[in-house]
């Protein structure tokens, strides 16, 4: 599925010295300070950071929803000037429209792009089949479980054949069981479709389990503090399998330490308490 756009050597996503400042009547807020990052074709990069550090702003920039104050944003070697066909965006909520059937929801992106053809509908139905939602295509979202809904949302995103996937805490609205289950699905599907992905999350374990590289962001103004290339020795390269790798805990502790270093973890105490429970021993 990764389009021919990914010329060898060029990045799937590239941010170069990006600054982002928000203005309100009360104040001027620097959300991102000098962010540079590269995501290679087919690479899965996770960004972790405390709440409000501007993680989601990075995704909005890549999606072309907002423009940076300075610096440049490129997707597949093209400067981002607005929402483009290269990018698929998954949000924390599945955002399925309850008045549309699952098929109708999955076709939403194609409808917006005026690309609904007999072939594209056939392709979407094939994807629904392949990911276990075939028999539900005429059902409404309320009939589906949380995990199935998130899978339907993923198919809606993939239907537009993006080259790059942006994941904005795609699992955090799900309960623990479903979360593991969906992370498996997500991982499998993304690897199968050979997509590059940028995922933001505040869940360290999830970031390590799913990605090739974890970037740690500081509190606002958001900067990239460090990067960790994740290399895990385990039999099954799936999020659950990867949690069992011996190196997992070391990565977890290193990233956890960096996040807590400048004291901002105190503010996000509950989140991090949750993450501690997510240490490999829990799986």
């Amino acid at each position, binding site marked *: 599925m990764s389009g021919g756009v990914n010329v060898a050597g060029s990045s799937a996503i590239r941010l170069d010295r990006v600054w982002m400042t928000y203005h309100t009547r009360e104040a001027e807020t620097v959300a991102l300070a000098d962010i540079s990052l590269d995501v290679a074709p087919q690479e899965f990069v996770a960004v972790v950071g405390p709440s409000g550090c501007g993680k989601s702003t990075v995704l909005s920039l890549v999606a072309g929803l907002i423009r940076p104050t300075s610096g440049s944003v490129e997707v597949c070697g093209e400067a981002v000037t607005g*929402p483009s066909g290269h990018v698929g965006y998954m949000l924390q909520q599945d955002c399925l*429209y309850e008045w549309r059937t699952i098929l109708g929801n999955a076709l939403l992106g194609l409808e917006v*792009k005026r690309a609904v053809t007999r072939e594209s509908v056939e392709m979407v139905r094939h994807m629904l089949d392949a990911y276990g939602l075939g028999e539900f295509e005429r059902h*409404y979202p309320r009939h589906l479980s949380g995990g199935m809904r998130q899978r339907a949302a993923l198919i809606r995103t993939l239907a537009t054949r993006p080259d790059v996937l942006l994941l904005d805490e795609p699992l955090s609205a799900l309960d623990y069981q479903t979360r593991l289950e969906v992370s498996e699905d997500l991982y499998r599907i993304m690897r199968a479709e050979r997509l590059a992905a940028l995922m933001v999350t505040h869940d360290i374990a999830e970031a390590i389990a799913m990605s090739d590289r974890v970037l740690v962001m500081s509190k606002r103004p958001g900067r990239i503090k460090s990067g960790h290339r994740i290399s895990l020795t385990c039999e099954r390269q799936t999020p659950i399998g990867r949690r069992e790798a011996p190196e997992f805990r070391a990565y977890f502790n290193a990233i956890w330490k960096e996040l807590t270093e400048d004291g901002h973890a105190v503010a996000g105490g509950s989140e991090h308490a949750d993450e501690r429970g997510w240490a490999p021993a829990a799986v």
Partner: protein
Amino acid sequence: MQTNADGRPRRCSGPGLTGRPGPLAHSDRLRSSGEHETFLRSLARRRMLVGTARAMLLVAFVVLWEVAARFGWINAFVVSQPSRALATAMSMARRGELWIHLGMTVGETAIGFTVGTLIGIVAAVMLWWSDLLSDILDPYIVVLNSIPKVALGPIFIVWLGTTVTAIIAMAISISVIVTIMMVYVGFREVDPDRVKLLRTFGATRLQILSKVVLPASVPVMIAALKVNVGLSMVGTIVGEFLVSKAGLGFLIVYGGQVFNMSLVMSSVILLSIVSVLLYYGVSALEQAVLRTRE
């Protein structure tokens, strides 16, 4: 199960009735099936009691009114009496007048709330489309909302003449501002993530409107329609008081002027029946639409 222990009757929210899965809940339900029957019986008894009491209240009121008028406890000339009101209505029905008046009022009201709702929705779309416009118009909408619309009646009559159009204008004016406010707020409360999702696909503002804002606001629009049924009826009746030669509002005013209280009373009763039926009609529409949603 706590409800079992202290012997109080099981409520709908009790653990046995939630259908929570698992062997415990299942055996729990079996064990307490006798108690459950008792609970269901007590529900049915209560429903019966409420229904009977409602009917009795109406019957008692009508009988008391009739008897009081007959025995001269109250002045039947001033307050009329059920038998006379019924006779008046029946004779109007026989002459066919009744249906003309009913049709007039129902028609004016229906056009009033339909057109009022539609204009309101279109205006709300315009305000949603342009934040600048909504900022500019905000104080005017507040003023239009606070003036009693019936005060505009004479203006409509001067502009539109003593016609059905003036009555409908009255009915529309009374419902349109409320619709604008309700629907506009509804538009603004559409989940921002759902809008964001469309924007990531590169949706235009028109697509955002048609694919998420309007469909997501259908419940709000129906709620506005429901409110407007009552409001348009007020507009219609006031309009008929002022200008008309037909309609229930006309009958009420005419009856009052010639001191025919039976005509007034029968018209008021018919009016309440009509307004309830219209309300239930829109409620049924609401149920039908919302059934397909969560």
